[in-house]
């Protein structure tokens, strides 16, 4: 076989593999849109479930997911971004920083159901928060930390070292350098990480199973200590626990969840590309 032929074969194979990656996501989206689009209506989006979930809408689940996503952001962002700043800007190589990094890597590997059980043990029972939005947000926040910390640290490290040196040479302290030069230039990257983390939190079922999610609630949550319905759990419930559930409503619910998650993804992509165009270095 000539060099040119093997080159062509290699190129064709690699292209095929790259295309194969795209196929499942396209199929999933198309399938869910086709199956679920019919269920989408104003009543579906703004109504409460009725008739044992078999009719009515999914409003409490949508609201619950939005509330939980904000709660997760509140629980996760300050600690994660703070930890990332520490690791990227202050930490020297020591047993402590190695231990922190090891912990982050391991946190990322823990199955989400284990987070759920841990949240049940620590937040719901030990700290007495009960099955509540607070407990669920803290559990989800914990789960998103490794993603947010790693992407935020990476974003901080892409800010060129020469800016830090110049800032110090002009008499700035380390903290001033972080605030004035490093953070403003890392914010878009950090935001991307935050959104990716929240997106995962919004779609998870296992961590909220024992910590916040309600099977059915006739009203919207009124306080952070209330339970709430949430889309992923609601989807799980109507797909497995409700006999005679109309298929279209299941796919409709999946579609709403998918749109919310992909929408967040889209926002992250927009932020990144806008920043790339504006970046001056």
């Amino acid at each position, binding site marked *: 076989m000539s060099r040119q032929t093997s080159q062509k074969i290699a190129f064709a194979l690699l292209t095929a593999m790259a295309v194969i990656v795209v196929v499942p996501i396209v199929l999933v989206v198309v399938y869910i849109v086709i199956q679920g689009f019919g269920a989408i209506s104003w009543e579906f989006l703004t109504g409460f479930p009725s008739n044992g979930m078999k009719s009515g809408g999914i409003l409490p689940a949508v609201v619950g997911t939005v509330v939980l996503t904000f709660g997760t952001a509140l629980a996760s962002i300050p600690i994660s971004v703070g930890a990332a700043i520490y690791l990227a800007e202050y930490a020297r190589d020591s047993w402590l920083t190695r231990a922190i990094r090891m912990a982050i890597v391991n946190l990322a590997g823990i199955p989400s159901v284990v987070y759920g059980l841990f949240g049940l043990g620590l937040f719901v029972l030990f700290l007495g928060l009960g099955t509540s939005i607070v407990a669920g947000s803290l559990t989800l926040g914990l789960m998103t930390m490794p993603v947010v910390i790693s992407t935020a640290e990476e974003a901080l490290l892409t800010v060129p070292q020469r800016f830090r040196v110049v*800032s110090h040479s002009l008499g*700035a302290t380390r903290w001033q350098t972080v605030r004035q030069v490093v953070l403003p230039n890392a914010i878009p990257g950090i935001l991307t990480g935050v959104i990716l983390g929240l997106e995962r939190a919004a779609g998870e079922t296992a961590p909220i199973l024992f910590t916040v999610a309600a099977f059915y609630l006739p009203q919207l949550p009124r306080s952070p200590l209330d339970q709430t319905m949430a889309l992923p759990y609601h989807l799980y419930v109507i797909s497995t626990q409700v006999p005679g559930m109309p298929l279209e409503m299941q796919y409709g619910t999946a579609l709403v969840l998918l749109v919310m998650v992909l929408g967040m993804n889209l926002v992250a992509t927009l932020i990144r590309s806008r920043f790339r165009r504006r970046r*001056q270095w």
Partner: protein
Amino acid sequence: MVTKFLIQSLVYRFSDTVALNRVTLDIPANQITVVFGPSHAGKSTLLRCLNRLNDLIEYEETELAGRILLDGQDIYAPGVDVTELRRRVGMVFALPIPLPLTIHENVTYGPRMRGEKQPGRLDELVERSLRQAALWDEVKDRLHDPAMRLSGGQQQRLCVARTLALEPEVILLDNPTSGLDPLSTAKVESSLQELKEQYTIVLVPHSVQQAARVADVAAFMLGGELVEVGPGERIFTRPREARTEDYITGRFG
């Protein structure tokens, strides 16, 4: 002549390399002291010891021995405010490095970090510093444009202005004309002659020729050691050390 910096048997080590080996040097106030020599002679390291920028090195073990006195005060003594030291001892780097901010924000960066907030005072500093760096006329109508949009030569003059805005006592210039064309280089060199009225200047030059053109005091370094130091006109015409003569006549380096 008043001594500004007194460097006494300074030894500086990165992990296993000795970058500076027992360097003793007297830097007079209001003069241009040129530190020249081939690459890896330790010139930049010496400059970065003077404003303690070497403190930022984290990836290697470093060690410093000897003393550096600024106006008689040991700058490595415990309790020295490093940010204040760096304000007194400003630095201009080989490549222009504007911060990703506007021209105005770049020039006022140092004063703002020190706590200067008065807009009037900051504007005044901007105009004066940019004039001193011979950039004012070119940028006065676009002070709030990103500094990155300036040309290379303008960026380097902006960096000089930014250092001047610190109102420092000493200005360290680490090969500031490396990226500049001959015309801009001449501008920078002539402005050094004016600046020395007010400031003490330590320059790592781009070439032996530049060293000879601007030096009041010239110090020749080789392999981390200070070979010879003396008045510029003598070093470049009647060097005492054979190694100095070999280098300035182009026999090596």
